[in-house]
């Protein structure tokens, strides 16, 4: 029986998500590298009380129309902000929970202010390393980032080589949603440009890793020297439709921006 991790649709890929699950979401906070089709499918699937682990919680669809004034926004972009807007998020573990501009109040920030959701703010490198630690089977690690700040609160502190470190634990998750460029049926992945980011870090760090790709190619087509995520870390693969592959951005029209 040949290994085949490719599933028929994004809905199929997320059908077993359950209420209360912890979900790693790849990407950095921009459309490239964001597992948009998987996120949109999770939106349809409807699992609630999720703990999402991501760099940037995100805009949500309404604010994306405003974001289109200062950045390229493809119509397929779907981020954690929209999951929050759907009331599917209970808690976020993130380095960038709110948008840089105080004028852009995301759905997650609104819910934070209303105390309807929880947040754990984690320095970006510590977030990446806590995810990597889960993937690598590390029990915990001492990190020099955080002492003397809110990131020290409630943590064991130890002085190593004369420098304060805080004890950090791995983030254990049920699912990882990641975006890659190409896959084969075994689950080997290659990435494109800066879209490797948290995607390659999160691959294999959850019980189930699901990759969203442009193309599934024949086994042997991916150069072993280029495979950034070996098949062992990947459980499911789903491919984008033709119009989601293109990197030519259809800009949201002025009218739609103004309506937002």
């Amino acid at each position, binding site marked *: 029986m040949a290994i085949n991790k490719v599933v028929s649709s994004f809905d199929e890929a997320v059908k077993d998500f359950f209420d209360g699950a912890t979900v790693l979401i790849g990407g950095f906070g921009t459309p490239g590298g964001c597992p948009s089709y998987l996120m949109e499918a999770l939106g349809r699937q409807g699992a609630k009380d999720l703990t999402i682990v991501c760099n940037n919680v995100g805009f949500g669809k309404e604010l994306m129309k405003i974001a289109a004034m200062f950045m390229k926004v493809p119509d397929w972009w779907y981020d954690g902000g929209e999951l929050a807007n759907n009331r599917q998020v209970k808690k976020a573990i993130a380095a960038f929970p709110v948008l840089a501009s105080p004028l852009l109040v995301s759905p997650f920030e609104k819910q934070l202010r209303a105390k309807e959701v929880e947040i754990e703010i984690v320095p970006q490198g510590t977030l990446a390393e806590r995810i990597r630690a889960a993937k690598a089977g590390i029990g915990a690690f001492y990190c020099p980032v955080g002492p003397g700040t809110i990131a020290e609160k409630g943590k064991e502190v130890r002085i190593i080589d004369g420098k304060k470190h805080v004890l950090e634990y791995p983030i254990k998750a049920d699912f990882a949603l990641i975006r890659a460029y190409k896959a084969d049926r075994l689950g080997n992945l290659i990435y494109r440009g800066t879209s*490797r980011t948290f995607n390659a870090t999160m691959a294999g760090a959850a019980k189930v890793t699901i990759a969203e790709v442009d193309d599934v190619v024949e086994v042997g087509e991916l150069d072993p020297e280029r495979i950034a995520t070996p098949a062992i870390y990947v459980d499911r693969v789903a491919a984008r439709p033709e119009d989601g592959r293109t990197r030519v951005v259809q800009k949201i029209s002025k009218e739609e921006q103004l309506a937002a």
Partner: protein
Amino acid sequence: MADKERLSRETMAFRVAKEFKDGMVVNLGIGIPTLCANYPSPDKEILYHTENGALNFGPNATPEEADLDLVNAGGQMVTTKPGMSLFAHDESFAMIRGGHVDLCVLGAMQVSEKGDLANWLLPERGIGSIGGAMDLAVSAKKLIVVTEHCTKDGKPKIVRKCAYELTAPECVDMIVSDVAVIEVTDGGLVLKEMAPGWTANEIQKLTEPELILSPDLKEIELM
């Protein structure tokens, strides 16, 4: 004093870039720090690092070149460059935390006389985004803060003790403001350079902690 000319954002970036040495790995924060990349002299080879996973990336992309899969940490579209490398986030922060980044330039809300930095949480907003600033502030070999000397309503940003949540304690090495260049030393803040037309006394009035005057105190060289 208020009507005296202060350095523009571009001029501050120009002054910061004079600290970039040939062969350095440099990470630039969002805002004025990003502008610094426009100014190092062309005879210097600088490798720019961005948290989201690229070393030695190219200049900002034109609309025709723009590619969603090539962005810097500020979300701006950038270009490829011969000698560029790409990597995942854990690797990127191994570079930072491991002390492989020579110089980092960040913005600030407040800097204390001990070099504590606060640059991520506005108290009136109540919630902020720390991003990679804590990691960079703690781990870069040298940290330069570039900032207006005062807030929009004229309050000092260089203070005895930061009132805002810290990014990291005792991490800043140098402050480049719109009126001064200040070095953070164990003995205190040393005023090294002043914007054209400014006196040490005038700069002191805009600064909470007492400034030590450098024996080499001079006007900022703007060329």
